[in-house]
């Protein structure tokens, strides 16, 4: 055995070693945990770098998260600012740079609890949308933190639908300035991070008005706070939008503008410019900008959805082998709750999903890197497909992961409800990912437009992008499986998924056509089909995910048992999807009732097989105790002792109880005459 890296014990050394119930789970893994970790990291070298970054961050007390669950909103905000400032120093000290291999692991090591993330978006938007002159002026200032930026797009009344934004920027030829205004309450900027308390500047999106004509939404750099004493600039009303489900450390803000004037040069003008005489000039292609927005969606999949799911799985699985409850057989010891079939069914499919999404994320990253190269060569052919991919998968993965994290929370019974389990904060945080960077339903429908278009093209014999060529090759027929073992063949289930996706897309396309031919207006017809379209897109994404998982397994090395265990997980992921969406597969008889029973049988068999490797499978995610910050999920499994010691540090126990003196004492003492 290869022995776990010592840093995992960081919290637990005082608690008397690894809980025997957890230790026994690690004795005979069917595969090499260390090899699987390296696979997830994309190579041993990456694993080494990641661990070094995590170690450097976690050994620094400024970055400690131990009190996180006891802090108020104000305290969390302050800690995030402190960490962000300290991080600059740390990076310098460690010799980490933004282009170095360490950079991508910093955010993971901090669990994202750091301020000034929008400052980065501010900088990126200037780099992408600004002219060379603007970049030269602003980027050094931002890099040196001479100013702190935010990105003010969303308003109270408008989010995903950008054309609906109501903030105005009127060009005044006389003074060569733009006059920015918030004409009504719903136009107030609302939600931008770092804006409530920190930012001195913001890129503000507003409807450009030149001599009474509206030119649509454009970005403007607006100073909102004094660089000297941080007081609000004239005409600016700004503040924090109040408590949210999570993200207490971020000062999401509001911003109201009253006749705020900025010079003509403050409109970001790489693609459009207003000339001194008020002439509006558009130049170049915006498609590169479009690509950036699309790439952002892909970037969040790993950090904000897949990694949180891996953490939740680690906590829930480890706790499920430590927690014993009820007896499976009379006279025996109480059983580990992971030995109950229902508990396996709650958790193991999510472990499989975490791997499935990790691999689809790799696939998307490759696709986007290739896309980026093409775009550099001014070839924009891949854009529609990339856009469809980023929308559909962002929506599918965040939605799945959010409900899976919640399922992990509920699988931990009462203790999952304690903040000290780490699960509630993972849960409330991941929920936001279903909304930001595009509300999921709307994103599904954007992918639907692409799929319907491709389906029509494919039916007419026109060429379509590679990911959707399957739409053209519709093979009628039935699932050939004869017994439950046939459902462990990737070809069998991949084809079932493909069949379901094609059926749902083609039937919805047909319905859409029918409605339009029967005289229903195009837009009404679309709205009438949206529920089915969403279902079709989910089927498409599910199919691609299963297919990619199966293909990835094919390519894996057989050494160290990695391929075998990944094959089991791939089977589980696929069969779980069929088991949970049986109707979709039974609908046209592609899978028969008898075959569905075989699916169920194989699916339940797999649970028992994967059960044996459950703990090694989550150990391979390689989270330190400090990263997990969970009393239930620590590597040593000393759950109860840690819960008890940690609770005693709660301010409710360390500070006096003012309610006793004020209310309880009078209540208990006086002989309440009225009672």
């Amino acid at each position, binding site marked *: 055995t290869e022995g776990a890296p010592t840093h995992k014990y960081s919290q637990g050394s005082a608690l008397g070693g690894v809980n025997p119930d957890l230790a026994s789970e690690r004795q005979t893994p069917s595969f090499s945990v260390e090899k699987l970790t390296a696979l997830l990291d994309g190579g041993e070298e990456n694993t080494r770098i990641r661990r070094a970054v995590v170690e450097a961050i976690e050994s620094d007390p400024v970055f400690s998260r131990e009190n996180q669950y006891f802090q108020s909103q104000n305290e969390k905000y302050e800690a995030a600012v402190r960490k962000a400032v300290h991080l600059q120093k740390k990076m310098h000290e460690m010799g980490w740079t933004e282009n170095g291999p360490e950079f991508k692991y910093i955010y993971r090591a901090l669990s994202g609890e750091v301020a000034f993330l929008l400052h980065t978006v501010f900088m990126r938007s200037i780099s992408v949308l600004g002219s060379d002159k603007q970049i030269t002026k602003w980027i050094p200032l931002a890099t040196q933190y001479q100013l702190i930026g935010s990105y003010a797009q969303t308003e109270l009344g408008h989010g995903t639908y950008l054309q609906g934004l109501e903030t105005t920027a009127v060009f005044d030829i006389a003074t060569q300035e733009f006059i920015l205004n918030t004409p009504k309450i719903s136009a107030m900027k609302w939600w931008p991070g770092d804006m409530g308390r920190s930012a001195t500047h913001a890129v503000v999106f507003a409807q450009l008005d030149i001599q009474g004509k509206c030119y649509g939404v454009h970005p403007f750099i607006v100073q909102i706070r004094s660089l000297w004493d941080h007081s609000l600039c004239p005409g600016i009303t700004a503040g924090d*939008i109040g408590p949210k489900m999570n993200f207490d450390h971020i000062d999401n803000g509001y911003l109201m503008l009253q006749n705020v004037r900025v010079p003509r040069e403050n409109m970001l003008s790489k693609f459009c410019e207003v000339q001194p005489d008020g002439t509006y000039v558009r130049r170049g292609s915006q498609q590169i900008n479009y690509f950036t927005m699309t790439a952002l969606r892909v970037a969040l999949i790993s950090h904000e959805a897949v990694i949180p799911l891996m953490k939740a799985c680690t906590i829930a699985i480890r706790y499920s082998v430590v927690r014993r409850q009820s007896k*499976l057989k*009379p006279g025996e010891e109480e059983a580990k709750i992971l030995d109950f*079939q229902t508990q396996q069914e709650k958790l193991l499919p999510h472990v499989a999903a975490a791997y499935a999404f990790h691999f689809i994320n790799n696939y998307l990253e490759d696709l986007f890197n290739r896309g980026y190269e093409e775009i550099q060569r001014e070839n924009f052919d891949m854009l529609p497909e990339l856009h469809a991919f980023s929308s559909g998968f962002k929506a599918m993965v965040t939605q799945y992961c959010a409900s899976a994290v*919640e399922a992990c929370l509920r699988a931990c019974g009462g203790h999952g409800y304690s*903040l000290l389990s780490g699960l509630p904060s993972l849960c409330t945080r991941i929920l936001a990912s279903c909304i930001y960077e595009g509300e999921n339903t709307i994103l599904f429908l954007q992918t639907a437009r692409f799929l319907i278009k491709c389906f029509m093209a494919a039916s007419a014999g026109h060429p379509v992008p590679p990911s959707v060529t399957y739409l053209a090759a519709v093979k009628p027929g039935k699932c050939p499986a004869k017994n439950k073992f046939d459902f462990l063949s990737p070809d069998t289930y991949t084809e079932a998924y493909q069949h379901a996706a094609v059926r749902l897309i083609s039937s919805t396309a047909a319905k859409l056509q029918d409605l339009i031919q029967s005289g229903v207006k195009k837009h009404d017809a679309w709205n009438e089909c949206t529920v089915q379209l969403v279902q079709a897109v989910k089927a498409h994404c599910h199919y691609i995910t299963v297919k990619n998982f199966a293909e990835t397994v094919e390519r894996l090395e057989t050494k160290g048992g990695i391929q075998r265990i990944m094959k089991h997980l791939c089977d589980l992921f696929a069969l779980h999807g069929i088991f949970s969406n049986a109707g*979709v597969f039974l609908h046209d008889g592609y899978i028969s009732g008898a075959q569905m029973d075989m699916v169920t049988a194989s699916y339940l068999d797999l649970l028992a097989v994967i059960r044996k490797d459950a703990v090694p499978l989550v150990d391979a995610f390689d989270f330190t105790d400090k990263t997990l910050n969970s009393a239930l999920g620590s590597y040593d499994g000393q759950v109860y002792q840690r819960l008890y010691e940690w609770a005693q540090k709660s301010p409710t126990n360390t500070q006096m109880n003012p309610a006793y003196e004020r209310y309880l*004492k009078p209540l208990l*003492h006086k002989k309440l005459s009225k009672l």
Partner: protein
Amino acid sequence: MMNADLRRERAAATFQPELLTHILDGGADRTRRRKELEALVINDPDFQHEDLNFLSRSQRYEQAIRKSSLMVMKLREYGIADPEEIYWFKSFVHRGRPEPLDLHLGMFLPTLLTQATPEQQDRFFMPAWNLEIIGTYAQTEMGHGTHLRGLETTATYDPATQEFILNSPTVTSIKWWPGGLGKTSNHAIVLAQLYTQGQCKGLHAFIVPIRQLGTHEPLPGITVGDIGPKFGYDEMDNGYLKMDNFRIPRENMLMKYAQVEPDGTYVKPLSDKLTYGTMVFIRSLIVGDSARSLSRACTIAIRYSAVRHQSELKPGEPEPQILDYQTQQYKLFPLLATAYAFHFVGAYIKDTYRRISGDINEGDLSELPELHALTAGLKAFTSWAANAGIEECRMACGGHGYSRCSGIPDIYVTFTPSCTYEGENTVMMLQTARFLVKSYTQVSSGQRVTGMVSYLNDLSRQRIQPQHVAARTVTVRLNDPVSLVEAYKARAAWFVEAAAKNLEAELHRRSKEDAWNKTSVDLVQASEAHCHYVIVKLFTAKLAEISNAAVRAVLTELCLLYALYGISKNTGDFLQAGILTDAQITQVKQRVKELLAVIRPNAVALVDSFDFHDIHLGSVLGRYDGNVYENMFEWAKKSPLNKTEVHESFHKHLKPMQAKL
């Protein structure tokens, strides 16, 4: 001024919301009384306070304690004694949230009443009634929850001193979670394994003083405190309790049923079925709570969806209300239908319990097992569905749903523990399954069963034919709720039979317990199908009782939506069981979408009928007047981060950094 969109929505409704409110309350007079009590609280300046979203945990606890003490006094001042009226009053005072005296009022006092001897009542009841004694109910331990027999706390009888010695022998045996234990209570009813004359006699209840009267300091031998922050329940001081050789007099064991005599002789209780009654009662409350919590979330999401405009449906036209998007209707209206369905189910269980408890007092326990099995499953089914539904409502409100001003995050974190407490849901489903399998076995051996499972009787008739029960064709009429009840019945029968047969097959291969575990995923499905059937059946039955035609029409639409949506989400079952054909499934889905359009004009009126006062709703997005944006801004200005214009972090961190770089 009411928001123009909401005014238009209300004017367009086809029925009078008050009439529906009366039905939900169980009569016009009860609606009137509820509103009287609500007014008593809302107009009382003593019950006003700052928005809870801006308070720390400690401040929230303090507010709750303050209100609870006032509440107890005022309840007595107003002479409110009916349990349901007390429930309403409390719910208005605490705005549907938990409070530190919940366990004192809901568990400690009732347990004294039902399990204490007359002598114990003399000693404890009046002081507890007068709040000199504040008690909690300490059952759950760190290592054990639903599986009570596994509890580890011990109470060892010492005949020499006639005392019980209480101990928490392991870390896992520390009492963990009881509400009001952390900071509020000075007594607890502690459940512990009783040891006397060297033998373990199982779990018994003991009255244990934990804090010094007067100083409120923990007594020697007692370690007690708060378990720290949780997902929700901020105002509740859920606590821990560790006992080290803590002695209490023999007379502190609750001895109405079981007894320990001075010499240590143990006297057994007569029957343990009676404890079923309390469980049925509390689980029936959770079913009602599922309905109410989901109704609140639906009210917020639907009103907001009528106020919010976004994007365009048709080029050139103004931005539509988001409630006009089919996808938005599809998210919300099935949940609205679910909320109504659960209301009626909750009322049914409550009435049935009331009826049966009359029988119980006369010694007739025959109906109790079925009701017990049914409420376990329905508790799980409804709390799971409401939990997921509340979350869907929040997501349907987009970004603003994520702000605490929407009120939905609070509803969610307050409600979600009900999937765990009073019996973890999966365990509950398996209890129902045990009853279903037992009933199936009875039918197979030629006996007849009664009540909600009587459909299993048909299985024996089916067996004359060689085919599987599923193969029998049901002629399903998609516009007739009664016919849909039959479809759900056939599905339940199919699942129960399949699970029972799988269990039987496993029994040939392995031990009873392993076979049960290997079939448990199937068994849970069978219970879910059974519960689903019961809900559709009760909703349908309710329609016949409604006299007003307009109200009946709109409820019929909701009932159809509930039933058809449920089919469309579980098409695999209906197809595999041969209850519906492919073509019918396509029709079901089409019909669901038609119903969305039919219900759309009444959506706001249907949530208005739930009749939540704005203060109780606690949501800026769900305000009755729909003035959402102005009030969001007003609300945010009160946030603690806005207390000073320049936050201290600027001077502490930002400025020094800017100077250095």
